[in-house]
């Protein structure tokens, strides 16, 4: 049967069909739907792990017992999981272990656009790269086979346009591996003491040679012979763009991209007059081809930044002038949702003019005007360290002008060790822990603080107040961020204390739990003085109707408003209220 599946759904399907029994991930765009889909298969134990390193290590535990296991993460997640990856390459596996890295060229939802093909090279593990959802399913199955045949973890790399594009996929049945899972002791394989690791490094080098042989002849690396004038070496989504724009070109399509073949590429080069390499991001295939002494052209250097598209390929291959976006076009950037419980916090930070070390999550959107209150964003869990590190070099007065913000899921991901560091090393800082009871930016996934597993089962709920205290924080305040006065007083008091203080805000994300929605507010035009105070909240439900000629009362879009009531709190003229309440 053929089904319309996204690349992520297809990978989940492939893992299921391959007999996978363990899956773990931390949510991250564009990889999140892999585990969400897998969690629907009752045959596979699946979990949201606190972070990617934990996910991979748990999968290693299962794989060492002979279980086929999969982990999925966004590209930067592999940075977190890199520590186990590099040594896992030495130990190898018992049951097949597949690591999905979902890269994000173009940074649709990421803080950098690193090319994770370098991880395959650096960790000396094989890599597969599908070019559509069908291959995502097929390569997922193949990845488990390669993993077990060559005793190695396998990296399965997608990009946003593979992960979030859909096409028709031929699916199959789940194979019955009929395995008994057990841990068989083998210290020379599983205990990477220097003496054993030295032996293993030699094995890894031999394995790479065997994988190169595979790369030369495998069905994932295929020559498509068409015209002899132009030959293109490509992989992943770029293959689709090449087929679209250059239908007559011969193509060497590389689905197995580490180690890259040598003889196959030489043979292909010998068949065509002009050789081109078309790949997204880094010149990895290009440098490999050139290292073989072959003459090849490649995309102009400027396109190392950003993702490719059929239009970009046409522009540099055929010199086409593409229609450009209109100068009048306005793209609306994402902003904090109407009723977002973070809004009151950023409004307060803006009023108090505090410098804010930020983190990864919805609250990074606190940078958007008019809130303008995020000052750093580098990686998960970093906000606490930024403020702590800064406090050790700033004057006392400046220390009190800086805070850190982090969300609940990100705090559990990698903020706990940061907070321990801050307390242990006597930093002088305030942390705002914005607890909205979900992993919001990726669409609302469970985490250890929600009390539910990925399958919705009840489990132990991590108490963040107790957690913060256990890190050694003496000063902990819990506030309702919908109460602006309470929030402001707590933040002001906390920043004026010495040592590490924490303010925890508690309100669930409005998108996750619609039962929290209240009656929409409205603005009484007669009472409104068009002062603009409510517009300073940056709420998408409040529309400024003023024209350059005339100030007009703002308007609340009742379809968007969820009744958080912040606008009523900032209005000095009592002009904002729930309409029904007014009649009373």
């Amino acid at each position: 049967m053929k089904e319309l599946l996204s690349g992520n759904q297809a990978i989940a399907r492939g893992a299921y069909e391959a007999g996978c029994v363990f899956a773990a991930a931390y949510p991250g765009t564009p990889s999140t739907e892999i585990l969400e889909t897998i969690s629907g298969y009752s045959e596979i134990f699946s979990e949201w792990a606190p972070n990617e390193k934990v996910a991979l290590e748990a999968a290693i535990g299962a794989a060492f017992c002979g279980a086929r296991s999969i982990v999925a993460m966004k590209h930067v997640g592999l940075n977190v999981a890199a520590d186990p990856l590099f040594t896992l390459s030495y130990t190898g596996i018992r049951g097949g272990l597949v690591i999905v890295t979902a890269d994000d060229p173009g940074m649709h939802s990421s803080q950098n656009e690193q090319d994770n093909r370098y991880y395959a090279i650096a960790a000396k593990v094989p890599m597969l790269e599908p070019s559509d959802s069908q291959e995502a399913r097929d390569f997922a199955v193949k990845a488990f086979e390669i993993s077990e045949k060559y005793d190695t973890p396998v990296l399965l790399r997608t990009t946003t346009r593979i992960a979030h594009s859909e096409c028709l996929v031929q699916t199959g049945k789940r194979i019955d591996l009929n395995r008994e899972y057990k841990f068989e002791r083998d210290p020379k394989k599983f205990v990477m003491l220097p003496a054993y690791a030295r032996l293993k490094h030699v094995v890894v080098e031999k394995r790479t040679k065997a994988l190169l042989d595979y790369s030369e002849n495998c069905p994932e690396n295929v020559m498509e012979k068409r015209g002899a004038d132009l030959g293109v070496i490509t992989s992943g989504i770029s293959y689709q763009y090449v087929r679209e724009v250059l239908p007559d070109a011969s193509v060497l399509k590389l689905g197995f991209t580490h180690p890259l073949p040598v003889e196959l590429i030489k043979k292909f080069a010998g068949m065509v007059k002009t050789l081109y390499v078309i790949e997204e991001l880094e010149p990895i295939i290009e440098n490999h081809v050139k290292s073989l002494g072959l003459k090849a052209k490649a995309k102009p250097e400027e396109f190392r930044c950003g993702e490719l598209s059929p239009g970009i390929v046409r522009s540099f291959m055929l010199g086409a002038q593409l229609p450009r976006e209109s100068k009048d076009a306005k793209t609306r950037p994402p902003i904090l949702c109407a009723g977002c419980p973070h809004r009151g916090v950023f409004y307060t930070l803006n009023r108090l003019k505090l410098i804010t070390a930020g983190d990864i999550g919805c609250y990074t959107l606190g940078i958007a005007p008019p809130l303008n209150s995020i000052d750093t964003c580098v990686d998960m869990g970093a906000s606490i360290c930024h403020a702590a590190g800064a406090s050790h070099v700033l004057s006392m007065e400046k220390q009190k002008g800086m805070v850190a913000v982090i969300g609940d899921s990100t705090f559990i991901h990698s903020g706990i060790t940061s907070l321990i560091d801050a307390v242990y090393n006597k930093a002088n800082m305030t942390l705002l822990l914005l607890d909205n009871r979900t992993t919001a930016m990726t669409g609302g996934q469970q985490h250890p603080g929600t009390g539910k597993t990925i399958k919705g089962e009840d489990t132990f709920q991590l108490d963040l107040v107790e957690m913060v205290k256990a890190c050694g924080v003496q000063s902990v305040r819990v506030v309702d961020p919908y109460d602006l006065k309470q929030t402001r007083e707590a933040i002001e008091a906390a920043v004026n204390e010495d040592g590490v203080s924490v303010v925890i805000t508690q309100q669930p994300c409005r998108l996750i739990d619609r039962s929290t929605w209240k009656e929409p507010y409205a603005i009484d035009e007669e009472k409104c003085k068009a002062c603009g105070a409510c517009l300073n909240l940056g709420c998408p439900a409040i529309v400024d109707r003023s024209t350059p000629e005339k100030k007009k009362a703002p308007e609340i879009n009742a379809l968007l408003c969820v009744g958080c009531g912040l606008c009523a709190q900032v209005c000095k003229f009592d002009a904002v209220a729930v309409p029904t309440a007014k009649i009373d």
Partner: protein
Amino acid sequence: MKTYRILIVGLGGQGVILSSNILARAAVAAGYDVKKSEVHGMAQRGGSVTTHVIFGEKVHSPLVEEGQADLILALENEEIERVKHYLRPGGRIVAVPDGFVKKLKNPRSINVAMLGLLAKHVDIAEEKWLDAIKGALKDKLVPINIEAFKTGLAATE
């Protein structure tokens, strides 16, 4: 078999992704090869959202190229300017007609209603559309959305 290259634009929360899911599934039922591309993550409520849906005999790229879209379907007319350069010469913009939202029982069904307007310009039988709507929505939401789709079919641009 004709190839259709379609962009759907709107704002996060309007149901752009649901519209493209229904369109893609209707096209599959009608026997086309189909590809669809979207971006999740930052498309929170209020932000610009675009999806690409392409169907025909055989489709390679899941992304429509600038200057090649046959149709642009807007759920929010202010978003059209942003993607107008994707339209091919002679291509068509299907915008929300004046007063159209008021004709709907529930303004939130604008995404499915606009598919009714789009349906007049693609070769997919009505029953395939209705099946796709039924397949994409919870049972209790099906009647109001089918009505919205038919309101779109009956509307003039």
